[in-house]
């Protein structure tokens, strides 16, 4: 089975024991689609039919996965840490909402396209400026940029609705399927289709030479300079793509709910999405899937199980995060890798 080969190879790579043979295996096999990769999509379809009452929560999870995936592209692969990724998510949200409420374009797919273009453009411009800095400076600048956008949206309340936000009603998808604000049937598939497309796109990128170059920049920027790789432009390109994907997630998020508030631009959201990604595991496609799902489910169920009068859900997430960071090498996906490696060792001995 190729699944076993590549996970061992990946485990070996993270452990720093990469010999020539396993490197060869990774390059030749890693991009192939494995059977287990069907699992998330089977679960997604199953949830839709088995738990109709949870479809709104499930839809939000799908969108957060897409958002986390966009962040993973820069944080996990290119090594650009951002604490202001909500800037692009929020930009996409407001573009999609304003197209309906102020410019009379109710068709949602058009809104998505516009949102992606605008947020990618914003990502290009800010990336071109900000990515000349590194480390804490970069962290601070991404954060400041997101806070600035948040304040702008608050200030131009005539347009954005400010603190109260905007309620709007998107038209039928492609003129055919109406959104269903109560049972979320079409809404769910709308988000699922975009997640699937976004996922295929990201997957293609990370296994391409461009993706390899990003990992190279993450691992050793100087050496990439030395081999003649255009480091800044590679990073700006990744940042632009990531911003576009975040804008896509933001647009879908507000379209399926028919409502946008300042929260989509908030610092809390920037932090939350980073937490989701770290929980799941960075630099591994499926980290975003696991992290976003676990975080949102914990948030929803701890509140209901432990009782609503105490804010225990934050405490539970905090503890889970600390334990995960302390005892695993790379979030839940790291735990999965370790488990597979352990089973293989047992079988061999």
């Amino acid at each position, binding site marked *: 089975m190729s699944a076993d080969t590549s996970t061992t190879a990946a485990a070996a790579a993270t452990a720093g024991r990469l010999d020539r043979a396993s490197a060869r295996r990774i390059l030749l096999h890693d991009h192939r689609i494995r059977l287990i990769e069907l699992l998330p999509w089977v679960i997604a379809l199953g949830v839709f039919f088995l738990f109709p009452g949870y479809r709104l929560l499930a839809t939000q999870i799908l969108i957060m996965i897409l958002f986390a995936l966009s962040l993973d592209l820069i944080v996990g692969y290119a090594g650009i840490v951002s604490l202001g990724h909500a800037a692009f998510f929020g930009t996409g949200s407001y573009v999609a909402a304003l197209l309906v409420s102020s410019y009379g374009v109710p068709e949602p797919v058009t809104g998505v396209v516009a949102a992606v273009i605008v947020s990618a453009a914003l990502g290009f411009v800010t990336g071109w400026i900000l990515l000349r800095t590194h480390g804490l400076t970069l962290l601070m600048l991404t954060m400041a940029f997101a806070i600035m956008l948040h304040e702008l949206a608050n200030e131009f309340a005539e347009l954005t609705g400010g603190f109260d936000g905007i309620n709007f009603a998107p038209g039928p998808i492609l003129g055919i399927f109406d959104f269903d604000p109560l049972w979320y049937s079409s809404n769910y598939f709308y988000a699922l289709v975009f997640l699937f497309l976004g996922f295929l796109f990201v997957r293609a990128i990370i296994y391409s030479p461009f993706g390899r170059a990003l990992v190279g920049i993450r691992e050793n920027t100087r050496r990439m300079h030395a081999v003649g790789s255009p480091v800044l432009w590679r990073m700006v390109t990744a940042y632009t793509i990531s911003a576009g994907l975040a804008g896509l997630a933001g647009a879908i998020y507000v379209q399926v709910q028919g409502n946008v508030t300042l929260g989509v631009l908030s610092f809390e959201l920037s932090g939350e999405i980073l937490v989701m990604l770290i929980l799941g595991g960075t630099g591994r496609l499926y980290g975003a899937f696991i992290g976003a799902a676990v975080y949102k489910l914990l948030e929803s169920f701890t509140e209901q199980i432990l009782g*609503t009068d105490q804010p225990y859900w934050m405490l539970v997430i905090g503890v889970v995060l600390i334990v995960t960071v302390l005892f695993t090498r790379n979030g839940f996906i790291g735990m999965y890798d370790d488990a597979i490696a352990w089973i293989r060792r047992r079988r061999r001995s």
Partner: protein
Amino acid sequence: MKLWKTALLGAGAVALATGSAQAREIKVGFVATFSGGLANLGEQMRRGAELYHNLHKGDLKGDTIKVIFRDSKNPGGAVAKSVVQELITRDKVDIVTGLVFSPNAMSVAPLVTQAKVPVVIMNAGTSFITNMSPNLARVSFTMWQSGYIMGEHAAKNLNCKTAIAGFTNYPPGKDSANAFKNGFEKAGGKVVDLIPMGGPAKVPDFTPFFQRAKDKKPDCFYVFVPAGNHASAVVKAYGQLGMKAAGVKLIGPGDITQDTQLQGMGDAAVGLVTAHHYYADLNTPTNKAFVAAWKKAYGADTTPDFVGVGGYDGMAAIYHVIKSVKGKITAEKAMAALKGWTFESPRGKIMIDPATRDIVQNVYIMEVGMDGKRLVQNQKGVFNAVKDKCKELKIGRCGK
């Protein structure tokens, strides 16, 4: 079926005893902010609602109420909307209530229109919310009620010819300042300056804003800030700049003298005149009984405030719906029952306006005074049966 933290309230025992064949279990979804820095608002609301329930358990003649509490977490719309969707599709609630912040209520509106579920809003105060769905009724207040009345009162009774309005720069603040301006100018005064004073998230240094107001020498200075820590900073800045001696009266809505915060403000608060629909110091038998019951239930050092009364009256409205609707509770029947409903609330007589489904209530004018070491509110006037002026005058989105 949820076994956890859902309070099984109601007169189950009575139902068994009478053996009524038509006993219903009414499910109520209670959505409010129960976590984070603003959790005290949700808690206050829950206490108000539970107090009403505990005092009136026997009134339902066999029906039982099951309240399912859910956390709306933040002032935005997304979480509130998703928990209400779950309450409707999964728990199949008959009534939705709570809703602390305006965006919470706004995001829920399209959902309950489609699901035909009635909503009793216990707080959210932006005026036009009730226009957003025919299934919303509000028992709390609108920002326009206190602001407009304060404007009228300042011009007519406080002898103010000119005024300045300072406000925290977010929708309730703008609503409140706008309402004050309308009321004040209609009664013959003139608002000479409107000063935005930063956002609601943190308390700013009020000195520059207050200095700007002082320099223009208005007769009255109307200030809106969110309930909580902002108010004590306002009172402090007013005292330090010597505005009282300069002849500038400080006035505002009751949010700036919220009952739960008042005692922390110190001597500088004395003389502050505010307009609001509820004060814990209201001198009526109904309110005295209410405050006594509250202190008995939750401790002598606690006090109800306008959020708690919102919860209490909201529960009263829900009881009224359950008692007057036969069979299944639909939005249509519930709203028909609520339109024109009157109730002897701790804040005085209230009514749900049949035309707008919004609250009609008394607005009181209070002045802060000293009683020994305790700050008290002394009643200076009352405006009876005040409607939401924003909808009456059809201003902005209120007209739609």
